[in-house]
């Protein structure tokens, strides 16, 4: 009984994770510029993989009686570092002057940079 229920929960977690990963890949393929693509890739793929890893951790814990701390460490590490990586890439893209999407309305960072340059000169 408990095995059936836990298999149901684990299967749901893994399927949800794979689905989120596919959604993020479609977002990376379809969105118009670098910044929106970073938004898709860093949030959705991270949530998907965290869900898969949680499912795998529960699988080995409940069904195989093998508590593995390294999977938990992996979950914590990916949760901490993947948004940071997205932020760094997005920042590097802005500083190497990759264009925004043509329909975007406002660029506050550009105005701030201009004001700063005026103060310095």
């Amino acid at each position, binding site marked *: 009984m408990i095995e059936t229920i836990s298999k149901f929960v684990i*299967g749901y977690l893994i399927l949800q994770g*794979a689905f989120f990963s596919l959604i*993020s890949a479609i977002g990376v*393929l379809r969105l118009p510029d670098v910044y929106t693509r970073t938004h898709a890739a*860093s949030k959705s793929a991270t949530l998907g993989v965290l869900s898969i890893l949680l499912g*795998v951790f529960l699988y080995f814990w409940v069904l195989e009686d093998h508590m593995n701390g390294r999977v938990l460490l*992996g979950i914590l590490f990916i949760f901490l570092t993947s948004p940071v990586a997205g932020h760094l890439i997005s920042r*590097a893209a802005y500083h190497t002057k990759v264009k925004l999407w043509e329909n975007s309305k406002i660029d506050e960072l550009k105005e701030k940079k201009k004001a700063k340059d005026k103060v310095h000169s």
Partner: protein
Amino acid sequence: MFELIIWISLALIASSSFLLMIRLIKGPSVPDRAISLDAIGINLVGITAIMSIVLDTSAFLDIILLIGILAFIGTVSIAKFLEKGEIIENDRNNQ
């Protein structure tokens, strides 16, 4: 049923890696390619985790953490190279 779900999720995550590969080939700027490489690395973590259920062994669970760390270091160094032009700054006079 459970095995079918595992195989379906493996197929989904593999096809998401394929879609990211398309963006990696045709992406117009360098940060696009860096993003899709980072996401492929994250997907590889998921593939390793699911494969360790399929093969029914816990021997590959260390590799998950390893791939996560390597993907993060690679992405940070690419970002720093794009922004500053060098990864490790060796200039002692410019403090």
